[in-house]
């Protein structure tokens, strides 16, 4: 038997999460932190801003200050030296905030997981909302991950069950929620 207070808290949390995602659908600002990355992920993140991928058309922007950011984009396996700066960046961000781990290193530590000088992934340091695997992930994977974090995308990875993507396009939600919208 679950405590009714717990159920109430959980329901409230779900409602709040929905509201936050609705707000972020309009516009989102990203602060990127390199926590020991090899710069391959940065190279792909940089491509998001070029005229071909152009994530500004989706209402996603990069910002230089964590105080203006809604989403923390972390690359690298979180080295010992970058652990404190990463925490400070996270603490400097206003609530509500999202954390996205980019690349195999940030997801699991990757090939540096066994090293004594890394923490073996962002998940060990911060609560991660979305994991984007790949070494480096392609810009389209990054767009998919960012839209997933905003509740505008659909998750295709299903854990135990391996699925190959269908030809159905990604379902898009308009900022007001509900119906599909063409971008």
């Amino acid at each position, binding site marked *: 038997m679950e405590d009714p207070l717990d159920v109430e808290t959980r329901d409230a949390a779900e409602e709040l999460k929905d509201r936050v995602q609705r707000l972020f659908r309009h516009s989102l600002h990203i602060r990127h932190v390199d926590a020991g990355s090899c710069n391959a992920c940065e190279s792909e993140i940089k491509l998001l801003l070029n005229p071909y991928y152009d994530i500004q058309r989706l209402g996603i922007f990069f910002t230089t200050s964590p105080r203006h950011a809604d989403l923390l984009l972390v690359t690298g396996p979180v080295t010992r030296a970058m652990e404190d700066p990463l925490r400070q960046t996270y603490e400097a961000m206003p609530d509500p905030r999202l954390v996205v781990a980019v690349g195999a290193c940030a997801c699991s530590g990757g090939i540096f997981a066994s090293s004594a000088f890394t923490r073996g992934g962002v998940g060990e340091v911060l609560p991660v909302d979305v*994991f984007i695997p790949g070494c480096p992930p392609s810009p*389209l994977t990054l767009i998919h991950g960012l839209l997933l974090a905003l509740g505008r995308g659909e998750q295709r990875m299903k854990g135990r069950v391996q*699925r*190959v993507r269908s030809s159905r396009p990604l379902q898009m939600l308009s900022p007001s929620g509900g119906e599909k919208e063409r971008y």
Partner: protein
Amino acid sequence: MVFSWVHKGLRTGVLTTRYPAVHEQMPEGFRGKPVLDPDRCLSEQGCTACVQICLPAALELKQEAPYSVRNDAAHLRSASSDCKEVVQSDEGGAGAGATQLTLDYGRCIMCGLCVQACPTGALQMTADYELAARHREDLQIVNLLEVSTEDGGTQDGGARFISPPREGEG
């Protein structure tokens, strides 16, 4: 000169991808998510080619009870009397000693070495790039051999197998 730029711009049109609305075709040779065809996999016959070559140890092979221990005490006694049978008892115990191939997409660097190493072509790289997941567990496939590639449909053309080419596919 300015006119030639304007002319070029008008002739080229919009190049920006329409990705979330329209699925993007990946270029030839793009290495996305690797998938395994369990029917062709020889890991139950002792093949560990992909596991050995995997650089970030994303592919792992686990063997449950390698010597196929039976609860039957009489079997154990007879087995211990004959050394040969203990070593080769895999064929005796069905289910016990099952191989478990796990793949962690969170560790995979999509290098494609496992595909090259696979002797039967059971492992293949797909052009699937929508790999983001909300939970770490969603990226881990515990028993790859139990998962069917038919699940989700590979025939719709959404996933393009790159290497090696499959029979009957253009």
